[in-house]
């Protein structure tokens, strides 16, 4: 079967090796490009629109997860079906375990031909099924279903890879005093967040129950209540591990909102979702990956 692929891997030798192993395991696969960082992974993927993505998890610029989330939102689904996503990982004990537990596909470095052949077989099967399905123009309902299935698979992959966040990073964030979120002593969800205010000179203790949403912004995470804004340095990914998932929903790569505070969700002409929170004026974009949360019951 013929297909196209993009490799994103920051270690040149490993990228070359994956390419060589793929050539042996899947002669019909054309590797369109091999890039070394997450930002270029996104731009090249959008330019080349390959069928399969092999993404390293740890990459400079933007990691594999960030790149995938970025792509999920910007992929032209009307033009091309969502690509098959495969994470490539060396030793992320936790990620590997999460992938294993959910029977998700990933490639372990160093790439072993036998393991890779299994992945290739599964990819070929998935691409074959996709090829057999009617196009969006012929059967929009079937195409929508296929898109949903693809998004669900991506979501699972991202959740598993996110669970592979090294625990020492979480620990470092919790103990780096000043602007970090304080872990509650007995585990359980976070109750209070130690954050600096806009001036940066005072540390404010913000009760989590007052927080309406968290937004990742460059090096910080903004913490917004109905009337105030604070900054913390704990990355959103690590913060989410300490929040009650019933109360706070991730709706975008950079956005976690209090579910109860969501007032309405609108679909614009382009089909993109925007949500509005009670007590906040701004409209917030909802990622395609999380649109399933807002399907009318």
């Amino acid at each position: 079967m013929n297909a196209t692929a993009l490799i994103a891997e920051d270690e040149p030798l490993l990228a070359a090796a994956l390419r060589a192993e793929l050539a042996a395991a899947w002669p019909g696969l054309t590797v369109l490009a091999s890039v070394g960082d997450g930002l270029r992974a996104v731009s090249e993927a959008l330019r080349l629109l390959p069928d399969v993505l092999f993404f390293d998890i740890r990459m400079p610029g933007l990691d594999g997860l960030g790149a995938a989330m970025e792509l999920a939102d910007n992929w032209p689904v009307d033009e091309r079906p969502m690509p098959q996503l495969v994470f490539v990982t060396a030793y992320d004990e936790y990620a590997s375990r999460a992938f294993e537990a959910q029977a998700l596909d990933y490639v372990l470095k160093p790439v072993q031909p036998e393991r890779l052949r299994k992945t290739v077989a599964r990819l070929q099967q998935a691409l074959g099924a996709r090829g057999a399905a009617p196009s969006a123009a012929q059967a929009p309902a079937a195409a929508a279903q296929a898109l949903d299935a693809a998004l669900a698979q991506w979501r699972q992959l991202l959740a598993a890879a996110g669970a592979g966040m090294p625990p020492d990073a979480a620990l470092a964030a919790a103990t780096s005093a000043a602007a970090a979120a304080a872990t509650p002593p007995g585990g359980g969800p976070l109750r209070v967040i130690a954050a600096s205010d806009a001036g940066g000179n005072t540390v404010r203790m913000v009760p989590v129950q007052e927080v309406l949403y968290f937004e990742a912004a460059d090096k910080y995470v903004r913490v917004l209540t109905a009337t105030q804004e604070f900054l913390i340095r704990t990355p959103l990914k690590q913060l989410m591990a300490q929040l009650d998932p019933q109360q706070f929903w991730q709706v975008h790569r950079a956005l976690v909102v209090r579910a109860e505070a969501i007032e309405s969700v609108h679909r614009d002409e382009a089909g993109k979702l925007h949500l509005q929170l009670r007590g906040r004026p701004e409209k917030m974009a909802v990622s395609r990956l999380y649109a399933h949360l807002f399907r009318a019951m």
Partner: protein
Amino acid sequence: MNLNWRDLARHYLQVVAFCLVIAVVTTAIWPEDGYWRQLGYAMCMGTFIWLPIELGRFAFLRPGETGWPKGWRGVALTTLGIGIGFFVGSLVAQALIGGGPLEGFMQGRRDRYTSIVITVACGLIGSYFFHSRGQRAALDARINAVERDAAEAKLKLLETQLEPHMLFNTLANLRVLIATDPPRAIAMLDHLNSYLRVTLSGSRATAHPLAAEFARLADYLELMSVRMGERLRYALELPDELRALPVPPLLLQPLVENAIRHGLEPKVEGGAIAVQAHRNDDGTVRIEVRDTGVGLQAGQPAGSDGGGFGLTQVRERLATAYGAGGTLQMTALAEGGTAAVVQLPATALAPASPDRPASVNPAAPSASRSATAPTP
């Protein structure tokens, strides 16, 4: 501290044993009463000396103290215990078996003083016995805790140096090179070999020359540059006069690892690392690890508060080896990137080997030897 019933029972058994001996002595002094009566007296006195002291210890104890109150409170407790023991113990003995020391008061001076002296002496000896045992137990506990901490720190150091992600990625690269470029694979394996050798023995050796330290940094950087390709450039600069300087093994490695992990790895275009050792005019030594990475702000653990485990470890090892003279300073560079600066005191340069000519300061060689040795 909570009352521990097993300790209490153990202590009381010791008191009983003590009383058995005292009764032998008192029987020798007053043979007319017989051993069992004397034992009865001794037991009553002993019990009522021991009980107030044992319970009082917990009442007098301040937080943080273990086992025995310090200073005047300890003395007061002992005095109080002996006083109570003498009078209450005598009364009880009198009630139970009749006669006894209080009766002695009525009979004559000699017996009265003798029994007071015996009670006080035995009370003091007993208290001293329990006191010193308690101190030793507390000391043992502290030594155990320190040893456990040290072992834990060593294990954590080893874990950071043998970080699985680094190791497995290196092996993955090695696997590729074996097929594509065998000579380079052999070179890489050699670097890995010497890196692992010093990492695994590094926790045991106390010091090695700075030249060896730089060679291990070169191994590590070479391994990393195979992985990172053109994204990593590095330069090591070590003046000849500093080659023999003894330093704790792998002291600098966490700094280089930090520079890569938090400086260069997150940066798309990568960058350069420079490690330079320099002898200052005042004899102190300055070793700088400088990178052109993303800088302190974005790099996660290297905050102004002292940073992650790696940096803490370096600071602790510096303090152990050099005291206040050994410091580590992290600075954000204006042009981007980070500089980690290690300062070593002038004594660090004194010859460590005894066969070198004696230096001006005769204390210097031994000072530097002990300076490079970790705590026993």
